């Protein structure tokens, strides 16, 4: 009798446990705005929690904020979308995701068929995602929507999104890379700032190198220049600005062994050898914000963080000219999940997310540059200061190299191999010539043509 009671009690406990766990696991829907459980400032975060859709359509969308300031911006955008679409019965939920593992998470969710309806990716990743077969072709939706003008977006970006007559997404924003500089530091050293040098047509690798050397002071742990150790401000920029390119013209092969590429690599290696910059990847960001770095190369997404953290006067300038003017045009499209339950509702949300008003608002809040060239958007962006010299970002657009998907190869493998060799080069273990040669040897197998 007692034994039976015991067994029964135990079995029911296990049963309850199992039920509780199943209930925990049942909610796989991302909670969107509710994720910011403890709002740091006031009630605006609460407003972005989408109310349970009462018979309307719920669309989830996701993008990747670079930091907390950027995240707030997207939450406000979500409020805007909901306000404008309330009449159509569509509710949008914003789901932020952090830097680390963003693309892996997306791919996992696509595999498990519970990815958000709309999500952002970096431009280079486009080929991988299209290859999954789960990206909705937007061309039919564009064609049947007479109120929508595709031409208002920067054509070079749209070109990257089109393949075989299909349009795979709309750009969220663009971001050119610029030089953030510590104005106080330049003035204290009696040097002309990058902005002044650029205005005088004298802002190039020589003057940049010169300023770096003059501002570097080991005793004060001060560096003249800094940039993250990844393809954007690292090997990508230096090779492009030297007149070369990581890829061949049609992006079906490696071109890192050309003399121009090697020249760019040599210049960059020199910066490290002379210890003119912090050697880590992201450490330079903390140091710039603390006032220890004179110039920092980064995209527009860096601005909100600098605004919050910097205690010195700062501004931006275009990238210095190497053999040619160059910078990156970082961009990322919103893609629509091919398995979305309501493509038309998703299209409505997408149109608002990329509208002049929305992108202007985002721009005004400082995070990014609108992907469209209509005046309203541009004006909103120029007015979003600090930094005062927003024009520097726009100046780069005509000559910028676009980060572009590698349709005929594997970008992850290519960049991983190149990065590894670049690390060895900047540590002085191999020469730039060896870097170029080995890079092309090792990446030959990553191309499919």
């Amino acid at each position: 009798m007692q034994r039976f009671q015991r067994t029964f009690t135990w079995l029911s406990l296990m049963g309850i446990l199992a039920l509780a766990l199943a209930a925990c696991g049942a909610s796989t829907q991302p909670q969107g705005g509710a994720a910011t459980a403890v709002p740091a400032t006031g009630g605006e975060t609460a407003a972005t929690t989408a109310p349970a859709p009462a018979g309307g359509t719920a669309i989830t969308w996701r993008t990747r904020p670079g930091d907390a300031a950027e995240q707030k911006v997207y939450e406000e955008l979500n409020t805007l979308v909901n306000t404008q679409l309330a009449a159509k019965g569509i509710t949008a939920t914003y789901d932020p995701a952090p830097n680390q593992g963003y693309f892996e998470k997306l791919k996992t969710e696509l595999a498990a068929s519970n990815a958000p309806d709309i999500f952002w990716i970096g431009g280079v990743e486009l080929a991988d995602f299209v290859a999954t077969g789960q990206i909705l072709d937007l061309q039919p939706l564009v064609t049947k929507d007479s109120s929508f003008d595709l031409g208002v977006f920067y054509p070079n970006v749209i070109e990257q999104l089109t393949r075989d007559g299909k349009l795979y997404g709309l750009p969220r924003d663009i971001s050119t890379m610029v030089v953030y500089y510590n104005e106080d530091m330049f003035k204290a050293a009696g040097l002309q700032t990058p902005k002044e040098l650029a205005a005088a047509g004298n802002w190039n690798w020589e003057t940049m190198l010169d300023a770096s050397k003059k501002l570097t002071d080991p005793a004060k742990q001060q560096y003249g220049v800094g940039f993250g150790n990844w393809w954007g401000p690292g090997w990508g920029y230096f090779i492009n600005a030297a007149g070369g390119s990581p890829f061949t013209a049609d992006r079906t092969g490696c071109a890192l062994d050309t003399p121009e590429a090697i020249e760019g690599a040599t210049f960059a290696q020199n910066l490290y050898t002379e210890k003119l910059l912090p050697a880590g990847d992201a450490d330079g960001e903390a140091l710039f914000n603390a006032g220890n770095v004179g110039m920092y190369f980064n995209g527009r997404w860096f601005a909100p963080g600098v605004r919050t953290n910097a205690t010195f006067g700062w501004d931006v300038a275009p990238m210095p000219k190497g053999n040619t003017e160059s910078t990156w045009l970082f961009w990322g499209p919103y893609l629509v999940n091919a398995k979305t339950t309501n493509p038309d509702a998703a299209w409505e949300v997408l149109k608002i997310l990329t509208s002049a008003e929305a992108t202007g608002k985002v721009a005004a809040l400082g995070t990014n540059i609108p992907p469209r060239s209509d005046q309203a958007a541009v004006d909103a962006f120029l007015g979003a200061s600090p930094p005062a010299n927003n024009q520097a970002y726009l100046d780069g657009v005509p000559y910028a190299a676009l980060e572009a998907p590698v349709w005929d190869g594997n970008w992850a493998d290519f960049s991983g191999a190149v990065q590894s060799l670049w690390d060895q080069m900047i540590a002085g273990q191999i020469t730039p010539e060896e870097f170029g040669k080995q890079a092309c040897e090792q990446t030959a197998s990553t191309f499919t043509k």
Partner: protein
Amino acid sequence: MVGDILRRPWERALAYVFLVVTSLIMVFPFIFMFASSLKTSAEVVQVPPKLFPAVLQLGNYVEVLGIVPLGTQLLNTVIVTVFVVVGWVLTSVLAGYAFARLTFPGRDTLFSIYLGTLMVPFAVLIVPMYRMMIWLSWVDTLTALIVPWIFTAYGTFLLRQFFISIPKDLEEAALMDGAGRWSILFRIFMPLARPAMATLATFGFLYAWNSFLWPLIIISSPEKKVITQGVVDLQSLYAARVDLIMAGSTLAVLPTLLIFLLAQRYFIEGVATAGLAGR
């Protein structure tokens, strides 16, 4: 005393110095981490590094709990840890008792096989477990962090060792009285096994609280992540705010330190027993 290594006073003094220096090496990083978590973001990257902040930035903790979102993640970690620990103890007591005190066909073979599973590196299981979670729709759920992991060969081994050492007459008397084995287990053996259960619970706590690889693979929504993931995300999202990263790391580490200090006996004796038993 005979057999001592340190006989003369100066040897003892030298030993003390050595012990103090090495214990400082062990502990100083934590002091530094905690002190840095209370600095401003500029103070933390200052050179030469100062140990103590000028003004205690307690606001860092408030701020860090609200982002990532670390507060929720801390809660998730607590939930997962509690369930895993309870699961460990229950399954180990049951299996340990069965292997220790019952005779049944296949007992020794089954036990050897179970023990043998300890040899398999976790890395071998991650890909198929991941695919299984997709199939079960457990991806990105706390369930995936709990259910597969409540079974432990180590725990079973520990409890079995313990139960074997209990004298047989306790059981025989109860059997004579007509008590069933389940009842014997719950009424007699479990209360006796409290020390072993406590030791197992402490190890289970460490295992669950500190686990990283599996949550990294299976959880991607920020509000479902656990604290280990949260701190790493802090590192990538807030690279410029080292002070916040230190605050987050402190939050990740502090609970284990507190529990350790409260339950040191169980931790240390548990490890020591494992070492002795492993011979």
